[in-house]
């Protein structure tokens, strides 16, 4: 049984009306139409989905973008239901990496139902699918409680990748990428180049004396400590042939 979750911005924006109508018709043609739930300002998405799962829904289809997926990821992962995506509008990076085309074309991918299990990352207990970034990285990292990594360059940034164009989100690891600006040569003749370190890890901890900013799937978190881990093959997602992994 399918449940379609419409994000608020789709209902408010008239330019999506026609596209929604086409999607609903196509879903009926394919025989996978289901209940429609609409997200609203004072409605808790997690509670809505929990109620639907209790009524027997086995597939939650998000009609929206990456932001919509973020709202439902915890409850979908915890209840072992399948996540489907019909991407509409901007900000659909996750759907692109899953190989799901935008709009009505996504209905055929849903109908084909190619389900993949993927890893989900966690940072201070909060889940993420794609990754994290720390633009100004001057903290100490402890990796898998065994070794420490620090940047000795003046400028560095940290990126954690779970699902990206170049990573496999089914390997039970995430990639920690440190880009350090290294200067070669003296004075004004020196040239700065970015050197990239890549560490495949299962867990890591970031510690800093001053609060530092970390962007989780684009959203900012501030703290002096971040514990990052991975939950292997936790999320079941319907993917398309054009997926990046």
């Amino acid at each position: 049984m399918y449940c379609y979750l419409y994000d608020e911005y789709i209902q408010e924006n008239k330019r999506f009306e026609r596209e929604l109508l086409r999607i609903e018709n196509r879903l009926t043609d394919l025989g996978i139409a289901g209940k429609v739930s609409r997200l609203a300002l004072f409605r808790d998405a997690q509670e809505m989905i929990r109620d639907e799962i209790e009524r027997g829904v086995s597939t939650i289809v998000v009609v929206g973008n990456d932001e919509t997926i973020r709202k439902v990821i915890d409850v979908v992962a915890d209840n072992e239901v399948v996540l489907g995506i019909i991407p509409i509008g901007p900000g659909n990076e996750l759907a692109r990496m899953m190989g799901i085309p935008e709009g009505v074309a996504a209905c055929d991918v849903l109908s084909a139902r190619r389900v993949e299990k993927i890893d989900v990352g966690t940072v201070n207990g909060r889940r993420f699918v794609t990754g994290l970034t720390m633009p100004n990285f001057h903290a100490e990292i402890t990796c898998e409680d065994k070794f420490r990594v620090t940047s000795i360059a003046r400028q560095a940034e940290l990126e954690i990748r779970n699902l990206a164009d170049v990573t496999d989100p089914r390997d039970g690891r995430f990639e920690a990428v440190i880009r350090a600006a290294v200067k070669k040569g003296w004075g004004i003749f020196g040239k700065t180049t970015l050197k990239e370190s890549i560490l495949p890890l299962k867990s890591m901890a970031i510690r800093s004396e001053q609060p530092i900013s970390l962007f989780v799937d684009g959203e900012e978190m501030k703290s002096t400590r971040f514990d990052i881990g991975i939950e292997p093959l936790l999320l079941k997602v319907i993917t398309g042939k054009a997926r990046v992994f």
Partner: protein
Amino acid sequence: MFKDKNKTVMPSSNAGETIIAQGVRVEGDFRSQGDVIIEGEVAGSVETQRALTVGETAKIHADVKAKSAVVAGEVVGNIFVQEMLELLATSHVKGDVVTARISVAAGARINGKVSMEEGGKGGKVEKVDEEES
């Protein structure tokens, strides 16, 4: 002209490959199942079940264990290699070496004992005193 402009191309390691580049320092017991490339600084111990590449800019103050290794930088510590150890012209090793096969380029510097053991096992190796060097 026909490239997808939205698609960002990011460099990545091969599956399970670790890269420690310049500008990064690693301290502690570093273990890996995959290939390891070191261009930065490492202190502690390094162990990989596959190939290790120590670049020209690398400074390693650690005991090193690997299946095979190519060294172009500085290693202060003992080296155990199961199969083949290749010391390039720019390499500088201060420590004992235990390996099954070795190749040493002209210009490479080794200060320590070299033992040829099948599988890079055995061979008593004394701990390197860094202050002496």
